[in-house]
């Protein structure tokens, strides 16, 4: 009798806790969308930004955000995934791997401005690339790699040993087991890791100020030769992302329609992140279904 009552109380707590979180979540997202949504129109999404006069848009910033996401993820995901596989499947449990694990977790607490200055000295100055997308992508990799590795490791460790043993017993080798059995089983966790990491790319400002820069020089959208200086695809050009733009105009902006651009950009960014998350999850579910054949 008593345990039933506790169960009921617990259920009430879970429901009310979850509802409270949903409420706050909705309030925050609603606030951002309400304040910024009314400014979003086609011109705002496509026009270049203005330094001092009103009426600027955020076209280049949107492009930069996605391009930088692509660049940094194409470095972070493979390395993070493989390193996570190594740590969880191949590395033994000794003092050294424990120390690596600990430093990976600790690195998460680096203030992103420190990563930014590290990137300024190493990627921007020492390599001579200057403020560029590639410097920004590498700085983001340094920032996100620890998280990606850790998430991979946790998701892989969550896979029951029975699955592994079954596959090995059927004659698959360790690598085949990892590719065909372990990774598909760990897939939902990996997707969450990727989605959160991407979220961090969308929102990061401090690390990018000093690496990818906070200027967006004019781009020629008809020039698709990747090595041309004015090509949007050139990874060696400086680029300002949407989050950096929001930071910049909130901090020191002198444009008269500051709130319009700042609030509008925040709303646009939220919509992008939302769209991106939903797409990634949907794709993830489909791939997962295909891989596990359920």
């Amino acid at each position, binding site marked *: 009798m008593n345990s039933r009552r506790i169960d009921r109380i617990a259920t009430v707590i879970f429901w009310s806790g979850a509802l409270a979180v949903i409420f706050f979540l909705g309030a925050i997202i609603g606030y951002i969308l309400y304040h910024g949504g009314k400014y979003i129109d086609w011109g705002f999404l496509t026009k270049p930004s203005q*330094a*001092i006069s009103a009426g600027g848009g955020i076209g280049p910033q949107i492009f930069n955000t996605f391009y930088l996401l692509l660049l940094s993820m*194409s*470095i972070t995901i493979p*390395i993070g995934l493989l390193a996570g596989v190594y740590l969880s499947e191949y590395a033994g449990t000794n003092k050294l791997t424990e120390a690596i694990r600990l430093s990976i977790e600790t690195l998460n607490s680096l203030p992103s401005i420190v990563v930014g200055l590290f990137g*300024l000295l*190493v*990627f*921007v*100055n*020492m*390599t*001579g*690339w*200057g*403020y*560029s997308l*590639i410097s920004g992508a*590498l700085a983001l*990799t340094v920032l996100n790699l620890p998280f990606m590795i850790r998430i991979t490791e946790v998701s892989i460790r969550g896979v029951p040993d029975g699955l592994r043993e079954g596959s090995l017993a059927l004659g698959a080798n360790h690598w085949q087991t990892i590719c065909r059995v372990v990774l598909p089983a760990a897939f939902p966790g990996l997707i969450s890791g990727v989605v959160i990491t991407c979220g961090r790319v969308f929102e990061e400002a401090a690390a990018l*100020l*000093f690496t990818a*820069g*906070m*200027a967006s*020089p*004019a781009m020629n959208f008809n020039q698709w030769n990747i*090595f041309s*200086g004015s090509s949007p695809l*050139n*990874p*060696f050009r*400086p680029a300002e992302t949407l989050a950096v733009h929001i930071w*910049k*105009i*909130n*901090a*020191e*902006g*002198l*444009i*008269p329609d*500051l709130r319009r651009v700042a609030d509008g950009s925040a709303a646009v960014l939220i919509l992008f992140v939302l769209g991106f998350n939903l797409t990634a999850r949907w794709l993830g579910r489909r791939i997962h279904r295909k891989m596990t054949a359920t």
Partner: protein
Amino acid sequence: MKKAKFMVVAALCLSTVIALAGCGGQAAQQGTDNKAQQLSGNITAVGSTALQPLMEQAATQFMAKNPNAKVVVQGGGSGTGLTQVAQGAADIGNSDIYAEEKEGIDASQLTDHQICVVGMAAVVNPAITIDNLTKQQLVDIFTGKITNWNSVGGPDQKIVLVNRPKASGTRAVFKKFALGGAEEATGIEEDSSGTVRKIIHDTPGAIGYLALSYLDGSVKAVSLDGVAPNKENITTGKYLVWGYEHSYTKGKPSGVAEAFLNFMMTDEVQKNIVPQLGYIPGTEMKIVRSVDGSVKNK
């Protein structure tokens, strides 16, 4: 130190090489591609966030005139600007204060270009019914001797100090010329002009200071000893709370950097963009002030 740096570079190059599959060499060649044109090349200007919008706008116009020249303007703060230009990592370093005033910068190798003048005003929450403060009152407020607005003839309201961070150029100028170097009492500190403006607007009894370019009517600027903080009083030397915006180059500038800095001083920039942003053109100043703060007529 050297060894550690080398290790870092080596380690990160490795991952980059893998990521890029070796297309890194291309960027370096770009700048030197077509030297035949009259003015070509890339320069980077880094530093003061206050000077950034002005430089960005000027750079856009400059590049429209010189299609082969590229000027990249970055923020990052005065300290970053000075460090980068002193190390040769940037062509132009922008700063809110003299390089001599920053500890750890060898100012002798840097050439100073004073782009414009920025005035600063003490600003208060709009609900404070005070338009003027004496210099002594201002010092007493910021050093924490006066803690209520009724001591200076205002409403019965606690004073809330809003400072910029200690390393900020705006704070350095304000402390030197408005407070006579007196040490401020500990108060709220905020990092950016935009946030300071919002906090002063929102918080009852708040006082802080802003560059004149950030005054937009949401906060109230007060006069100092009866002198209003405006362009005329600054150019004639009546109102002394102002500073130069500096662009530093390592040695004498050349090439694109020289052309760009010359362009910054033309009427096109000084008469249009500079006043539009609320800065005061250096060309209109009737007085000059040196590093040590002494003022004389031009």
